[in-house]
């Protein structure tokens, strides 16, 4: 069977209307940046009533492509067609006018405004020349929400909504502006499994109404579940188009990365030893003085990975900060191999052989304007061999950087390059390379957030190696898949307390998801 026959057969099998113009077509899109080809003759076509998955690693060119579609970047070559007609999109206002809606990974909402106020922001419903007609706006929004199957109160303030509900507000914003082509960038990254399922129902309903949806993600199972067709791009070029029925997670991952990858890191068996980290009755306040960790107990033995599952904002951040010394607990004890480290300074905790990969690598983990070699010794700069007395030993600092760059496969021209020029995955590798080593305890907070498959695989493998070398690993992640995949033991945190504990072999995804959301099983 030739390529053409296969294509013909595929087209025949398709349930999508053939012959009608695609809702959106991008033809031969090419975009060059100095030194690189961000998009290389990319073709993408999306039918009305289709959910189209767009897969690719970080830096593969997904964002550039979507920014071109949204009018933020002008392509060097190629054209964009909407309903079969070539259009030029100059700016986002242009894109919105042509029915393109974008839901960004980071929500663009004003927390203190109501749902209705957020939705109409920039497209206000007026009564006369100066007065807002919020009543009419609420009516329209409620009607729209019902049409797509949302339950949402337009009068409630956005800060009172859960993350999943906020995302619906973002979708409503796009629909309210008449979007027929909806682009969702990593929409499930911050959601619980239940919320993800709910958003999928919404997307299917929108598809039923004839909307075209571009679903950008790196979660392979989700793309397979929701998409009608999947386009994979690597290094700026389309490397494959698949239908979910004809492909597998493994094939998609291999396409994305360009080599064979192991999706599930083989966790092996753990051999837990002595108790390493012991947290008892810990109470911690957040910056506003609210107690967000409320009597928490936790044990991590050496040689095991304990995963803390929970919806973001249930005290995980403060728990981690209290353990590593960045925040003083108001009560309770933290011990490391029996030694009390409660309320010690970050440096004292580090010197007790604790490694810490922070959730926000750019805010805490790195000094972006510094070269890599300075970042590699950021926490040990004051000790031999990096310094003798107060004088820095540049040669040792550089050698250390070169060694870690090679060992952790950090993709960079060299150790004197600034950290800000690296991709997210490589930045995280710098942090991980620095923090991993001869540690008694490693605290990993969202270690692979926003990373591509390749970097995630790498970091997971390293974490397991650390465990096997006898380190206690505490893993905090909003990504339940990551917790399930990596942990030997799982604790569920809800409102600052541990509400459930599971052996990884017996952990059930749905039960954990419910515990995360409600704090109690069904």
């Amino acid at each position, binding site marked *: 069977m030739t390529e053409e026959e296969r294509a013909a057969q595929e087209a025949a099998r398709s349930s999508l209307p053939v012959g009608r113009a695609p809702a959106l077509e991008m033809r031969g899109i090419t975009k060059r940046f100095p030194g*690189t080809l961000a998009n290389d003759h990319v073709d993408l076509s999306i039918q009305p009533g289709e959910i189209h998955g767009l897969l690719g690693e970080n830096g593969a060119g997904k964002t550039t492509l979507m920014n071109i579609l949204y009018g933020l970047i002008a392509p060097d070559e190629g054209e964009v067609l909407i309903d079969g007609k070539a259009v030029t999109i100059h700016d986002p206002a242009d894109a919105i006018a042509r029915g393109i809606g974008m839901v960004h990974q980071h929500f663009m909402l004003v927390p203190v405004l109501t749902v209705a106020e957020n939705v109409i922001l920039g497209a206000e419903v007026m009564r006369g020349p100066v007065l807002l007609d919020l009543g009419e706006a609420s009516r329209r929004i409620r009607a729209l929400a019902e049409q797509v199957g949302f339950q949402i109160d337009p009068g409630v303030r956005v800060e009172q909504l859960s993350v999943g509900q906020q995302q619906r507000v973002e979708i409503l914003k796009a629909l309210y502006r008449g979007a027929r082509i909806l682009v969702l960038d990593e929409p499930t990254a911050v959601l619980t499994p239940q919320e993800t399922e709910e958003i999928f129902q919404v997307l299917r309903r929108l598809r039923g109404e004839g909307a075209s949806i571009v679903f950008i993600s790196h979660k392979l199972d989700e793309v397979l579940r929701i998409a009608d067709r999947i386009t994979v791009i690597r290094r700026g070029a389309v490397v494959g188009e698949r239908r979910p029925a004809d492909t597998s997670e493994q094939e998609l991952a291999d396409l994305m990365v360009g080599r064979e990858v192991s999706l599930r890191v083989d966790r092996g068996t753990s051999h837990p030893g002595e108790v390493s980290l012991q947290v008892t009755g810990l109470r911690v306040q957040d910056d506003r003085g609210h107690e967000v960790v409320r009597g928490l107990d936790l044990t991590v033995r050496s040689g095991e990975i304990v995963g803390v599952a929970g919806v973001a904002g249930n005290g995980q951040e403060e728990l981690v900060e209290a353990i590593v010394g960045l925040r003083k607990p108001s009560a309770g004890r933290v011990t490391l191999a029996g030694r009390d480290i409660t309320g010690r300074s970050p440096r004292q905790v580090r010197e007790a052989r604790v490694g810490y990969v922070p959730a926000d690598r750019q805010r805490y983990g790195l000094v*972006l304007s510094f070269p890599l070699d300075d970042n590699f010794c950021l926490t040990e700069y004051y000790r031999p061999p990096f310094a003798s007395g107060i004088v820095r030993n540049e040669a040792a600092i550089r050698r250390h950087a070169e060694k870690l760059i090679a060992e952790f496969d950090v993709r960079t021209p060299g150790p004197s390059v600034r950290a800000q020029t690296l991709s997210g995955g490589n930045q995280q590798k710098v942090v991980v390379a620095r923090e991993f080593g001869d540690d008694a305890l490693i605290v990993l907070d969202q270690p692979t957030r926003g990373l591509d498959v390749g970097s995630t695989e790498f970091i997971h493998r390293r974490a397991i190696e650390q465990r096997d070398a006898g380190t206690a690993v505490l893993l905090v992640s909003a990504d339940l898949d990551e917790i399930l995949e990596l942990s030997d033991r799982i604790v569920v945190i809800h409102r600052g307390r541990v509400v459930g504990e599971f052996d990884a072999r017996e952990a059930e995804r749905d039960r954990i998801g419910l515990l995360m959301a409600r704090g109690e099983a069904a």
Partner: protein
Amino acid sequence: MIAALARAAAAAGRLATIPLLSILLALAIAAVLMVASSVYTGVGFFPLLPLFAYGNLFAGAFGSGTAITNTLVAAAPLMLGGLAVGLGFKGGLFNIGVAGQFLAGAFAAAVVGSSLADAPAAIAVTSALVAGAAAGAGLGLIPGILKARTGAHEVVTTIMLNNATALLLAWAVTELVRAPEFTFPRTNDIGNAALPVLLGRNLHIGVPLAFVAIFAVRWLLERTTLGFEIRTVGANPNAARYAGMPPVVIVPLTMALSGLLGGTAGAIQLQGVIGFYASGISASVGFDAIAVALLGRSNPIGILFAALLFGAFRAGAPLMQITTRVPIEVIDIIQALIILFLAAELIVRRVFRLRARATEIEGAATVTQTWAEPSVTRP
């Protein structure tokens, strides 16, 4: 080795582009003002006036041995003051208090110097200098501690301390240490505490001292752990805390070091040029120092050149005024315009059609992202 030098030179060139173009633009605009105002200054409309004015400015600054020593003497306190501001910038702090620290340093040097006026020169000179440096450091420490402990912003506290210091010292020189034989409030002469003159009429030892300070601060920032801590706190205080560097200690220390440099600037100006403290002495060095640090981009070597330029302006201006009747105040206009253009970098980029720096970063980012192919990229 040669390649490394070339790279370093290219990097320095990139850093210096905007400052150099800002200077050029400022000189051009000041030239227009000169021509426009020549009508009123009695010269009559004279389009070539700026050429003569700048020619005389240059001659006054570099045209003879005396001119050059004048430039260096004027530049020395600007170097120290510029370092004070620049060091603060590196630590994420805007020390506007150099004017006050300069006065405190000058006052302390005058008081200690005049009381040791008959002591052996080595002891008198050193003691006065140390007293000036310590006074500046002490005055810098106050806003540093306030910032670290209470979060009080150093811009506000240093501005307030400038006034408090000037008035306190005016009172002190009138009531506490006034030399009775003079008709106005001033201290006694510093006698042996005057800085030794090395060359010509006035090239005092403070000039080489300022050069040493340039390289000492550079060494501190680039080669020591303390400098690394200062730069980290300045670049990302969150990361500094994460890495175990306590900002509560580093911030006051940075301010004290900054104040120390400001105080030393005051001490060398007093011991090398003025010779006694009076309540009217100018603290304008403290404000010019901010311009010097901005023009030098907080880089010690940049500060060296910026201070030499501003020193040259000060040293050359009198000759310009005498020969072309262009008022000295033009120098203030030029300095102000330079700062304006540095602050509004976008204007300079527009005028000279330079690409924005963002694209340089973006370019670099995309380069590293495509690093996956070993054939293209490994150095």
